[in-house]
């Protein structure tokens, strides 16, 4: 059997007394779109932070295509083929949209070559700009290539962060709340985009919008108070009582020590 793209096993993360993740396990197969849902504070972003090396889990393992990932510094992930968008926008306002996207590539000229303005650095620069412009065209926003991020509408900025992530040509794309703040038209467009990415990569989508996640995911993991309370196909999740209780706020009893702040 093929190795899963991402394999998280028994992952535990604590912040002081808060158990943000409690023995969480999940598998993301190649070319799968995997949804992660759960109420605010459930631990979704913390899971991404652990995968990306921003924090050190108290227990468990994470492997990516069969390679142990824990202990890998965040800046090494891009080269391994992992890209992630942040829940806040995380664009660099001091760079143009095109430059933001160019920097998504991990191909970088040498320091000395750049300092001396060598032709090799220029060639790489031209190639990356071309690629970035292609990615922007693919997302239908090439016309704002030279604008500064704060000058374009929010929905467009959300597309720019995806463009920057795609520039890395990832095998695993982690999207943290890509649909938040989008109009329903923009959400449809995002739906089509994520669907088309599936041929090229695995995608993990953290989202609040249940309908959106149900529509795009092959499999879904539901977190509540740091625990996996359900996982399966969208149909499985839709029929799950515990999930609807967690979402409708009925009869949810917080597990010990998991009082989310």
């Amino acid at each position, binding site marked *: 059997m093929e190795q899963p793209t991402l394999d998280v096993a028994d992952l535990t993360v604590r912040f002081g007394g808060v158990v943000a993740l409690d023995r969480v396990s999940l598998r993301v197969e190649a070319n799968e779109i995997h949804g992660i849902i759960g109420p605010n504070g459930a631990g979704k972003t913390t899971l991404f932070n652990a995968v*990306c090396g*921003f924090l050190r889990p108290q227990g468990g393992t994470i492997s990516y295509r069969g390679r142990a990932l824990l202990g890998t*510094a*965040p*800046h*090494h*992930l*891009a*080269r391994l083929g992992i*890209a*992630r968008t*942040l829940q806040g926008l*995380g*664009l*660099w*306002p*001091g*760079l143009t949209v095109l*430059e933001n996207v*160019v*920097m*998504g590539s*991990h191909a*970088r*000229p040498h*320091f000395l070559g*750049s*300092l*001396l*303005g*060598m*032709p090799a*650095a*220029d060639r*790489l*620069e*031209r190639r*990356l*700009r071309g690629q970035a412009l292609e990615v922007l065209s693919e997302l239908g926003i*090439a*016309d*704002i*290539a*030279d*604008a*500064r991020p*704060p*000058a*374009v509408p929010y929905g467009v900025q959300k597309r720019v962060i995806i463009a*920057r992530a795609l520039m*890395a040509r990832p095998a695993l794309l982690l999207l943290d709340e890509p649909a938040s703040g989008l109009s329903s038209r923009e959400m449809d467009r995002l739906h089509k985009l994520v669907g088309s990415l599936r041929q090229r990569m695995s995608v993990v989508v953290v989202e609040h919008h249940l309908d959106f996640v149900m529509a795009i995911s092959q499999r879904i993991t539901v977190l509540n108070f740091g625990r996996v309370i359900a996982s399966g196909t969208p149909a499985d999740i839709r029929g799950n009582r515990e999930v609807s209780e967690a979402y409708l706020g009925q009869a949810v009893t917080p597990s010990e020590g998991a009082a989310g702040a």
Partner: protein
Amino acid sequence: MAIRLARWPSRTTPTLGRHLALAVGAAILLLLLSSQIGAYDDYNLAEVAIFVIAVAGLNVLTGVNGQLSLGHGALMAIGAAARLRGPYLAGATLALAVGLPQIATRYSHVFGGEEGLTVTPPGPPDWLGADFPPERWMAWIAIAAALVTIVLLANLLQSSVGRSFKAVRDHEAAAALAGIDVARTQVHAFVVSSACAGLAGSLFAYWSGLTAPAGFGVALSLQLLSAIVIGGLGSLSGAVWGSIILVIIPALTGGLASSLSLASSVANNLPLAIYGSVLVLAMLLVPNGIDGGLRRLLVLARTRWTGAPSTHKGVVDWDDPSGG
């Protein structure tokens, strides 16, 4: 919103060729200028050029990379770099600025004490003639050094390296996720900046004829910082404007103090007071520095005369070193 096509052709010409052409043009103009002015003005011109090197270097660190150095004057004195970054840099450089003059005074047998070491500036070469003013020769050396520095920094800022400096300044986590080693990038910016400070410091010693430790303390460091704020944070042309201000104000106010025949206690502090007022005024009137103000004027003028709306929607490219 249309693509600003006007900008694309410049991106396809070789970076080095473009920057060298600009530098050669500037060199010719400055050499002509320096030959037309008197020895005292040449002396001031040399000082501007030396400041340009230090201020541009500081602007890369603080304006472009977002790290604060409170001891750049002291770095000018040693031109050496400790491997420091981020918030520690501000503290360590401040300590350096406070401590270095004292260390140098204390170990006076090495550093010459408060009087400093005497440095004999290199005289003009014979082929320039016997009566060639040494001030003009100094100006030429300083201008050449400043132009080389500016060309190298412009190359760097326009490259991926320069963009990684800004990415780290604007959003560290996003930079790391894009594969940028944040710590390494901050150290790079500091090394570049310190190299500039060191070069400027050694020229400064020749220019002033001696290296007295007191001259490289906190006051100089703060002057360099205000120069990048007044000139324009993050831009190389801002560094030039800031350096001009650094030299012009003491020169003007010095003359003013003596013509008003003020008491020496007042006169000695007058440049500093006027300097402070200029800093406050600049921050109120042109929050993005002189460079930002000029660019805004340019954008307004262009809109006015061509009727073409700014594609940047009023966002001025104030930290684009390429000149927008």
